[in-house]
């Protein structure tokens, strides 16, 4: 009898111990994000599969866009090379789970910063890189000139976005009784709208401009209605539990914004580094104070970021601004002293 009890007990104990260990085990990603990045030699960046202006790959597989440039700036800062990035294209519903699981280090995918996401999804938003608002796009032929005329209209919308809720709120307040047709991918949403299944397409206004430009046979056949029905501050986010990396992503973004404020550009950054006497510029470029040390980086951290992608204004101009194909006005995304909302805490 004794031997039997032993025989039962042994595996039992072992499994129980295993279970106990398991419940005590710390998550697999507690290690510093930066150490892991340096060890593998690349930054894992989650992006939109196809939103020209924000994130899109060209025929050679080279990614570009505003969201991409944020990742490039972080890679340049931490790894010293803006091209050392592994991009992971994600649809709206996947993105947070992939970040939570540690598959990506940073999610830079035109993602709206909301309380719900910030507080309950195990992530931190690092700031706003594009101030947007949700809008409607309609066919010019429909003669709809204002969102108030969308009574009973069918509206194409992608699932897994804040958009569905905003649409409903607006529809309710304005008593429009709009009917959402929800698709799981942006491609399907685009196709349905351009085939005429829906009378309106709704997403962030910048997204509408991008979609119109990319998908419409003739972009002029579609108009984006003037009403913006929500606030959509878009920005990158990182996983919780690594305050150092959180601080780095946050301050890289601020440095890019402040660089514009003080006139540091991709073109003049080398020259300013050698010759500038402006104390603010000197601090940003690390020629006087060593601000990098406080972030766990070297003194050239911001210099490398600006050198790689230019300041925030340049990033905006190049990807989405009036000179790009999207032709979005600077609007809210201008510097705070030029009527916009871009206000970076000082790098000092």
């Amino acid at each position, binding site marked *: 009898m004794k031997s039997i009890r032993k*025989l039962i007990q042994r595996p039992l104990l072992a499994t129980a111990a295993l279970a106990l260990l398991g419940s005590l085990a710390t998550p697999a990603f507690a290690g510093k994000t930066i150490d892991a990045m340096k060890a593998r030699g690349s930054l894992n960046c989650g992006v939109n599969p196809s939103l020209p202006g924000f994130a899109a790959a060209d025929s050679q597989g080279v990614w570009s866009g505003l969201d991409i440039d944020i990742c490039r700036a972080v890679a340049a800062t931490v790894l010293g090379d803006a091209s050392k990035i592994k991009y992971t294209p994600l649809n709206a519903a996947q993105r947070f789970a992939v970040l939570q699981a540690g598959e990506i280090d940073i999610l830079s995918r035109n993602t709206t910063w909301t309380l719900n996401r910030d507080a309950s999804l195990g992530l931190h938003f690092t700031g706003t890189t594009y101030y947007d608002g949700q809008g409607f796009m309609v066919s010019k032929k429909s003669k709809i000139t204002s969102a108030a005329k969308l*009574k009973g209209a069918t509206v194409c919308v992608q699932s897994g976005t804040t958009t*569905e809720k905003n649409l409903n709120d607006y529809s309710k307040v304005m008593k429009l009784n709009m009917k959402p047709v929800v698709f799981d991918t942006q491609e399907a949403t685009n196709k349905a709208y351009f085939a005429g299944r829906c009378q309106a397409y709704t997403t962030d206004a910048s997204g509408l401009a991008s979609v119109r430009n990319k998908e419409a046979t003739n972009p002029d056949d579609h108009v984006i209605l003037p009403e913006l029905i929500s606030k959509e501050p878009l920005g990158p986010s990182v996983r919780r539990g690594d305050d150092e990396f959180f601080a780095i992503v946050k301050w890289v973004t601020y440095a890019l914004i402040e660089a514009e404020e003080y006139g540091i550009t991709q073109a003049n950054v080398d020259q300013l580094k050698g010759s500038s006497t402006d104390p603010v510029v000197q601090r940003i470029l690390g020629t006087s104070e060593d601000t990098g040390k406080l972030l766990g980086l070297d003194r050239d951290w911001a210099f490398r970021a600006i050198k790689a992608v230019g300041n925030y204004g340049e990033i905006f101009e190049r990807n989405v601004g009036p000179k790009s194909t999207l032709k979005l006005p600077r609007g809210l995304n201008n510097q705070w002293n030029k009527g916009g909302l871009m206000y970076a805490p000082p790098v000092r």
Partner: protein
Amino acid sequence: MSTPPPPKRQWSWRSQAFRGLVYQIIAILVLVLAVGYLMSNTFANMRARGIQSGFDFFLQPAGFGIGESLIEFDSSQSYLMAYVIGLSNTLRVALVGLVMATILGTLIGIGRLTKNTLVKSLCTSYVEVTRNIPLLLQLFMWYFAMTELLPPIEEPLKPLAGVFFSKNGLQYPLPVWAPGHWGTLIGLCVGIGAWKFWTRHVKQHFEATGHTKPSFLPGLGLWVLCGVVGWLAGGAPGEIDIPEVTEINVVGGGSVTPEYLTLLIGLTVYTSGYIAEVVRAGIQSVSFGQHEAAVALGLKRTQELRLIQLPQAMRVIIPPLTSQYLNLIKNSSLAVAVGYPDLVSISSTALNQTGRAIECIALVMLIYLSLSLLTSALMNIYNRRVRIKDR
């Protein structure tokens, strides 16, 4: 010669029965602990990363709209209600799909067995084409065909007064629900009984006298009559919601959206190909002697099918048919690809808004599992009724 006494059951390690029992207990324990380990690890990790969990979100207002539903849904209703709407949308497409796929599949299956070469080869190619193209692609094809070919929402087709057909789908007049309609419903239920009574009467009459009486049309007439009487008894509510043309589209009335139609057609066509093969196999399993006997009795081909072959084929058909039914129900989860708000679509919206991935997915899995088990159970009951009875 006396039989040796049965070996005394020994609770010792040398007894095979005992060892077997111990192994089973260990296997179960390991399974339970493994699942427990995975779950506790998951929850520990989620806690460590600040991801919230729990089903408490269920009673909070959903806050999103649903494009089409049988029951009116308002965004201030709870997530639970949204799931109910999603489930009802899934059932709405799955049940109609089951009936249509069965009818279509049976006809095609029989068609493959006719002597008419044209019908036979048409049915064969139908089966081969529908079975061999992935359902998702078929759905895309139907959806693009529908959204490209139908007239624009602003200029709908008007096949009948009050009926509109456009990229917005089919919109038609619908009676407004009034308490008086209960009368109609009760009348229709009574009508089914009357119809059954008539069929039985016809059968008894045939068995008693050898003369046949018309069965179907009078039965249908009785059913409709009972419905009308019920409607009149309910006060004859006559208010009808007629679709209205507005500045930009058509609103009101009942409607069937292109998304629903796409999913229904896609599921029906795809599954009917499989059902056709099941039916063909079933009919071919009936021995040739039965056919000869039917011919000898002078039965027509249709009578032979209805009275001799299909009843005997049923016992072969039902089990594989059940798994086709289960496939159809599960395949309806592809709805999200064509924008139909089924259970999965609504759950993924809920998932995104609440971030409760594990809860939402587990719940959807549980619902599909229950649906499938329920279908299996019903089909098993039916199977028990049609199988050959040993007497």
